[in-house]
């Protein structure tokens, strides 16, 4: 196997796992609470900025622990003082609230940290190469990121399997008052779930921000992709989200590594100019960004419950 392929696969895996880290929180929130949280990627961004700010004081390792906790607390506050107030008006009101919130968070972040990227760098130990493949160094942080994502997958799955939180939230979605009248504090439950989901986003941010870039547009760019992961993975399935993240990560990365015009891939000659030629001469890397959405649409048409979902969307 060529080293380019191996590297591309590894890079795809790393990106996919980062996507998973980011979307696992949304899977929790969306499939449990039904809240299409448009601010989820904003919590990711907050995690990155807080991680950046804290690491200047406490160092990187402490920062990636405290930052998610802070983001979780912010999430809890958002649920407690925002979402809870509009919950009774239904999911669309919640969605719109988070939508506005995404807006606000982006502004606040720029207000505090400026409009350009901040210089959030990893500690040297993570930047050192883990191994060198054919002259290309593979930095340790990618492996670290993968390990964290896999750890998260395990934690979330165990959490859902061994507690009845999942059941309760699902029940409370449709009939919150009835759940209350069975003896559960539904509002607090929602706050907790939302906080945990946000904290996961914060963790993804603290790590992803250092690996990629910490800048005010980072939320806006990842926003829709996160929904693709959740929907394609299937409502209620953390494992599905995991698989979907990997697929998207791989597709995006391999398309760059093995870029080729469409006509060439299909074994035709160059189509020349004009007419539909433009469509044909589009290259793989160029269509890579639209593949996730294609996947989303196809999933919704042919398999509305996603890869491993328990019910239709």
């Amino acid at each position: 196997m060529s080293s380019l392929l191996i590297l591309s696969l590894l890079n795809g895996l790393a990106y996919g796992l980062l996507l998973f880290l980011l979307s696992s929180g949304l899977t929790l929130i969306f499939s449990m609470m039904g809240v299409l949280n448009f601010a989820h990627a904003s919590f990711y961004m907050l995690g990155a900025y807080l991680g950046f700010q804290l690491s200047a004081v406490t160092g990187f390792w402490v920062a990636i622990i405290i930052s998610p906790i802070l983001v979780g607390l912010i999430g809890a506050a958002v649920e407690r003082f925002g979402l809870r107030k509009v919950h009774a008006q239904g999911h669309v009101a919640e969605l719109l609230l988070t939508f506005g919130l995404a807006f606000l968070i982006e502004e606040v972040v720029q207000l505090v940290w400026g409009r350009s990227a901040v210089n959030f760098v990893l500690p040297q130990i993570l930047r050192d190469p883990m191994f060198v493949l054919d002259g290309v160094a593979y930095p340790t942080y990618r492996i670290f990121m993968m390990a964290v994502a896999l750890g998260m997958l395990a934690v979330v799955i165990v959490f859902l399997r061994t507690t009845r939180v999942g059941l309760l939230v699902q029940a409370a979605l449709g009939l919150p008052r009835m759940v209350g009248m069975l003896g559960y504090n539904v509002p607090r439950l929602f706050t907790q779930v939302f906080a945990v989901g946000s904290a996961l986003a914060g963790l993804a941010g603290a790590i992803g921000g250092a690996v990629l870039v910490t800048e005010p547009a980072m939320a806006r760019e990842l926003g829709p992709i996160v929904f693709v992961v959740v929907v394609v993975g299937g409502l209620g399935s953390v494992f599905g989200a995991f698989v979907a993240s990997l697929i998207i990560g791989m597709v995006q990365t391999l398309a760059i590594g093995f870029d080729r015009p469409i006509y060439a891939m299909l074994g035709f000659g160059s189509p020349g100019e004009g007419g539909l030629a433009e469509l044909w001469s589009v290259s793989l890397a160029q269509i890579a960004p639209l593949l996730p959405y294609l996947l989303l649409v196809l999933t919704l048409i042919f398999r509305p419950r996603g890869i491993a979902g328990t019910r239709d969307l």
Partner: protein
Amino acid sequence: MTLVVSGLHAWYGHSHVLQGVDFEVGPGEIVALLGRNGVGRSTTLKALMGDVERRGRVLLDGARIDRLDPHQVVRRGLAYVPEDRQVFPTLTVEQNLDLGNWRGRAEGGWTKPDVLSRFPRLAERAKVPAGALSGGEQQLLSMCRSLLSNPRLMLIDEPTEGLAPAMVTQVKELIVEIAARGCAVLLVEQKLTIALKIASRVLVMVHGQMVFQDSTAAFIAAPEIRRRYLEV
């Protein structure tokens, strides 16, 4: 367990539905709450649970529970079976039952095997989403679910609605047994024949106020009450 209610008011928005209700429920008693449609029987139960805007004193064994949230009320030992069943449609029958048991463990009293063996239909449907159950099955499930918290007082709203006659008999027996095992029951029931057969005391309600409160025998002995307040 003793429940003492005095001066209970309740509102839906601007409409003042309960207008000063007083009554008591003693330990192990079955008390039937009667009245015409829309007089506020269901609202009384909801007000006890804290599910509507309310005012008044509700004492459970001397402790006030009228400022608590529904889940806190439940943790004091009340349980509620709503008139519209409210099973969780996407959860299976078994999961519905599990959620009823908020104590998280089966102690003494009622357990899941208990109710499943009593109603084999529920056992057969254990893995079916509750939303797919027939109307009557949902009614049963709802009642069993609340029972699993092993309350000291159960508030049951129209448990026999939509049940076939044979099933009605079973439910009736269940209620009697609940009481026999030490849990008091406040029962709202349309079908007088049933209510009068199992209740030891009767409350009659008109326009958000209690107009009659006495033993079942006394109620049966006073047909004019029945004519005046219950028939149209």
